């Protein structure tokens, strides 16, 4: 077969379809920019409102404030009762605990599912996938009574300990898929050298599955940070509150009076997620995409 360089080859019908030229291209960009503006406008509006005086937020809907009022941030930060720094510290405790728990427990379970044959493996694996679909609300009440009897209410334990028990099946599934793509020859070579499964897990599998671990870390961080229901149920005293709870508190107490400060703190509350998104955008999207490909 004679080699045709791309430059010489005429465009295939498909390429013609895909790479629209000229006016069609401009039309596409206009359409996509239009959608993007609609998608991002509420966020930009929040950002701009966070710098506006209260009087201006609803009377002057444009994005550029007439007058800048950065005091919204300092006022919101000192907040109602507790400083926002307390809520952020609390959120950090919860999210870091959850991340460590998920990374350890889910990778252990995933390694077992991906690399061993054992009695009832199919059934256990099926159960694991089943828990993926189980709504958290279905076990919320009895889990609450368990933690209540353990006197863990109003501590961070109910938010962190379950993560050490691999309750987020999504990540087990993600990691199983990833480990399956690691050549088994590597494990077998290590086994020949006398490594036991724990050593193989630690020295071969874990280092090679770093991309999956990073995806797990970011998603666990964001999802735990945003998880309002469980924090609302388990944390009762203001000094234990996390960022989402701190925000609702804010919303209740200042209703009608200090919108600027509320938007300022809402903006700050979104910042960790936004930073994760900007830094790890590609990885987040890929992690999600691979989860869907397996059906």
């Amino acid at each position, binding site marked *: 077969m004679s080699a045709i360089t791309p430059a010489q080859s005429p465009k295939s019908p498909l390429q013609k379809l895909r790479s629209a030229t000229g006016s069609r*291209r401009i039309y596409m960009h206009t359409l996509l920019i239009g959608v993007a503006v609609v998608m991002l406008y509420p*966020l930009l*509006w929040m950002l701009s409102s966070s710098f506006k005086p209260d009087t201006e937020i609803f009377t002057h809907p444009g994005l550029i404030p007439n007058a800048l009022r950065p005091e919204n941030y300092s006022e919101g930060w000192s907040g109602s009762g507790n400083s926002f720094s307390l809520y952020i510290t609390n959120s950090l405790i919860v999210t870091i605990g959850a991340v460590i728990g998920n990374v350890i427990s889910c990778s252990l379970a995933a390694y077992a599912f991906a690399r061993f044959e054992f009695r009832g493996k199919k059934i256990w694996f099926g159960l694991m996938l089943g828990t993926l679909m189980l709504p958290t609300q279905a076990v919320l*009440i009895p889990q609450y009574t368990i933690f209540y009897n353990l006197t863990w209410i109003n501590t961070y334990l109910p938010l962190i300990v379950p993560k050490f028990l691999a309750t987020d099946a999504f990540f087990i599934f993600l990691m199983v898929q990833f480990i*399956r793509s690691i050549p088994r020859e590597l494990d077998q070579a290590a086994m020949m050298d006398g490594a036991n499964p724990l050593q193989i897990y630690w020295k071969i599998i874990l280092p090679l599955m770093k991309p999956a671990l990073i995806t797990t870390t970011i998603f666990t961080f964001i999802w735990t940070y945003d998880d*309002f229901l469980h924090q609302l149920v388990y944390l009762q005293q203001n000094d234990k509150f996390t960022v989402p709870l701190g925000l609702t508190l804010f919303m209740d107490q200042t209703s009608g009076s200090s919108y600027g400060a509320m938007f300022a703190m809402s903006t700050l509350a979104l910042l960790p997620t936004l930073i994760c998104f900007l830094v790890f955008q590609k990885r987040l999207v890929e992690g999600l*995409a691979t989860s869907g490909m397996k059906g």
Partner: protein
Amino acid sequence: MTTAKTDEVVKEPPVPATPSDQRERDRMRRRLARRRGGGWWPYAFLAPWFIGLFGLTIYPMLDSLYLSFTDFDLLTPPQWTGTENYERMFTQDPVFWDSVHATLVYVVVSVPLKLALALGVAMLLNRDLKGIGLYRAAFYLPSLLGGAVAIAIVWRQVFGGDGLFNDFLAWFGIKGQDWISSPDTALYTLVLLAVWQFGTPMVIFLAGLKQLPKDVYEAAAIDGASPVTRFFKITLPLLTPIVFFNVVLQIIDAFKTFTPAFVISNGSGGPLNSTMLYSLYLYKKGFTDLQMGYASALAWVLFLVIAGFTAVNFIASRYWVHYDD
């Protein structure tokens, strides 16, 4: 990805069993089993997951089944009341029906809209165009922020009486209203919020579109198939496994929606229970009214409904989902 099959069927040598042979054979078998199955190793790796599965999923499910037949306020021991909770739910609790109605409307309206938008935008993004990564990021961002309280707060203000949405309508000379405090429209602000977050299924659709065989399109284009024909005869059939995956996931997700309903209605589910999504009602019954028995019954009904929807999805999928092999 295919799993390399390394385990072969081990045939045992047909030798007469003398005691020492038997011992030898047992040892051999154990060693082989160890190599294939790793003996107790897999169970050691799965230990945390087993504890979680039994302690935090299976036992709680059974416990809540028991609690659903009791009157339980957390502080005093549960009192067995038989099917009273379920009877009350279906016959004497109008708020339960309000929440069922709100949830079904929410699921039935938001899921198809969201998926249609996700697929449409994914198809727009599936071509060579400069800055495609930026668009993808912009469309995915709202989904990632979706569950946050801050977003729900913003949404509440955007659709409030003097909010952004009414300013937008004013451009077209339409006089708005307070969408959040009207029982006719409050639920649809939640639907709109869900639809706005079409990024997750979009990313999954996009990954699926990228895997479609190009030669089929080429052949179809040469045969003069129109874009509409190509979409319905090629794209959609080949994409059905991914459509199915997204449908199942989005329905489950929609049934679980809690945060925006809580924030937008200030925890009340109002106005007139119009935003009383099922999860919010369950929360109120369990944790505001401390009717844990009744809330457990609600939880079981939710579980059965979701399982039912998922099962119907799987059964129906036999008729419309096409797998390659």
